[in-house]
């Protein structure tokens, strides 16, 4: 791990409470949007589970590409095309290294986590799930990891099973042996819940899946951005995430898959780079990863994703995680000290990522969201694309504050003050 560059503090402890590893002020200076004022107040951006902000290094990667290198990739013999291809493939290699994928070809570029999940459902699972088989997900999934499986199960006459979530916000692992059984073909679980923050025991689930000959898909949309993730250590068969949730641009995501699985899968889309040879009668497919990348890829955003990965690697993912753990502990403490508040998910901050979802007895989440926005504070309100989970708590909407590398304790204080300020209207 490098210890130079913006955002890295080499001195042992410049702030005794927080930022021991991460120089948050240096990090913040890399994010142009953080100097924006919202409603005359400094922006306090706590909507990171929805999407994160971008450092100047990522924005510059885009600008530089379009100003100096832009060309279509693959098959071009001219300089720009060669440079663009090299940069595009280098970004893939960076991402592979970031998640410890054994080979760059096992990293497929998609649009986002949702497309990655749909891809696996429509190809691997479509080919392997049959009548009477089952698919196992959890009760805390994002819609994108529910609906493709509902549809597949309906189409195949297969069963969709849910691992339950306990009152403590943790996955109920007691009867995974009966739920994940010999008819299970795929287990698809979120690594970190975008509502509860819960970190799920994915290695254990992978183990069980493999015991019964199933594959495991990990929705890492909320983990890869926030903690060190090693696909080989977890023994993930498939793993998905989105660049926009990890300092990268919108419009690009990743599907990692084990080589042999990807290799035997039929393509998802047809055309352009995914083809080896076409006659008027027939076509043959290109090798991995291109088999899954039909048409002109999102070249610029792939390269910018490489820059995001560089940025995070420089910070060190252990430091990112540590920073968020400290914020979460502080945030849980402060928010739960307020009256009228119920927080969803694990009480112990050590069991969760940097996500705090809560409801206020007297203030509807949308009113709270609007009132906080007046004070420059951006949180998300609603069902967080996890309607069934949110409803299981007896509500239809919740407020959610979620943290990232540039957030500070001071911002959490602003949130808490903001809630108090809003109570002036709603609590008599």
């Amino acid at each position: 791990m490098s210890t130079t560059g913006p955002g890295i503090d080499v001195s042992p402890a410049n702030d005794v409470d927080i930022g021991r590893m991460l120089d948050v002020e240096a990090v913040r200076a890399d994010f142009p949007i953080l100097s924006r004022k919202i409603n005359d107040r400094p922006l306090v951006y706590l909507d990171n589970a929805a999407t994160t902000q971008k450092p100047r290094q990522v924005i510059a990667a885009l600008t530089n590409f379009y100003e100096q290198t832009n060309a279509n990739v693959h098959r071009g013999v001219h300089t720009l095309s060669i440079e663009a291809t090299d940069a595009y493939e280098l970004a893939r290699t960076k991402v592979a290294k970031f998640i410890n994928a054994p080979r760059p070809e096992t990293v497929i570029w998609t649009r986002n986590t949702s497309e990655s999940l749909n891809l696996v459902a429509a190809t691997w699972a479509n080919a392997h799930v049959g009548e009477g088989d089952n698919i196992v997900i959890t009760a805390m999934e994002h819609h994108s990891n529910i609906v493709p499986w509902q549809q597949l199960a309906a189409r195949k006459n297969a069963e969709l099973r849910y691992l339950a979530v306990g009152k403590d916000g943790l996955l109920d692992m007691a009867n995974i042996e009966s739920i994940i059984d010999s008819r299970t073909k795929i287990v698809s679980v979120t690594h970190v819940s975008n509502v509860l923050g819960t970190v799920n025991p994915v290695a254990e689930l992978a183990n069980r899946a493999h015991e019964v000959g199933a594959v495991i898909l990990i929705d890492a949309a909320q983990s890869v951005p926030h903690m060190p993730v090693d696909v080989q250590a977890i023994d993930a068969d498939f793993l998905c995430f989105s660049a926009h949730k990890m300092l990268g641009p919108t419009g690009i995501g990743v599907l990692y898959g084990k080589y042999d699985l990807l290799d035997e899968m039929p393509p998802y889309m047809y055309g352009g780079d995914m083809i080896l040879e076409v006659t008027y009668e027939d076509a043959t497919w290109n090798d991995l990863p291109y088999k899954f990348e039909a048409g002109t890829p999102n070249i610029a955003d792939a390269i910018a994703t490489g820059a995001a990965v560089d940025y995070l690697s420089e910070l060190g993912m252990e430091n990112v995680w540590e920073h968020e753990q400290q914020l979460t502990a502080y945030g849980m403490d402060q928010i739960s000290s307020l009256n009228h508040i119920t927080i969803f998910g694990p009480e112990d901050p050590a069991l969760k990522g940097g996500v705090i979802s809560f409801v206020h007895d007297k203030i509807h989440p949308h009113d709270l969201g609007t009132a906080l926005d007046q004070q420059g504070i951006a949180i998300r309100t609603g069902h967080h694309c996890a309607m069934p989970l949110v409803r299981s708590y007896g509500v239809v909407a919740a407020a959610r504050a979620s943290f990232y590398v540039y957030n500070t304790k001071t911002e959490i204080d602003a949130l808490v003050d903001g809630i108090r300020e809003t109570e002036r209207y709603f609590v008599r």
Partner: protein
Amino acid sequence: MMGDRSGFGGIGGTGNAGGLDELNDLYEAIILDHYRSPRNTAPVDSPDIDLEVNNPFCGDEFHIQLKVDGDTVSQVGITGRGCAISQASASLLAELVEGKTSSEVRAAVSAFRRLLKGEEVSDEEMEKLGDIEALSGVRKFPVRIKCALLSWVGLGDALEEHLAK
């Protein structure tokens, strides 16, 4: 205009100038009062119109019941849950429509829509809307307009449908 921000030419923005003071416009005393103590929440016996309206994105949902005698709304009951805006708006609506003829309701819904969109509303119409004027602060918060309209649109459409039968 082909300037550097041409991609941003038409951003609507939030339309509000900022600061907590703006909140006073949104959460006027009348609105907070109707939010905390919604009117006409008693269920209606054998209603002529009985409908659920909801916005799954924010979770607001209301149960609207009307008794219609001839051309007149004789009894109204609205229950449900939602944010202060949708709740107060539903309560104000219930208060307004009771005893009104269908054309008066139609006129009120039309005037209310225009009020929220910032379009012309005559003094006479304003007067008829009464306390509902308090909701005009929502104009500064365009993303909340659908909260204010939820029960109005539902009720308006249902009434038309009922009368068309």
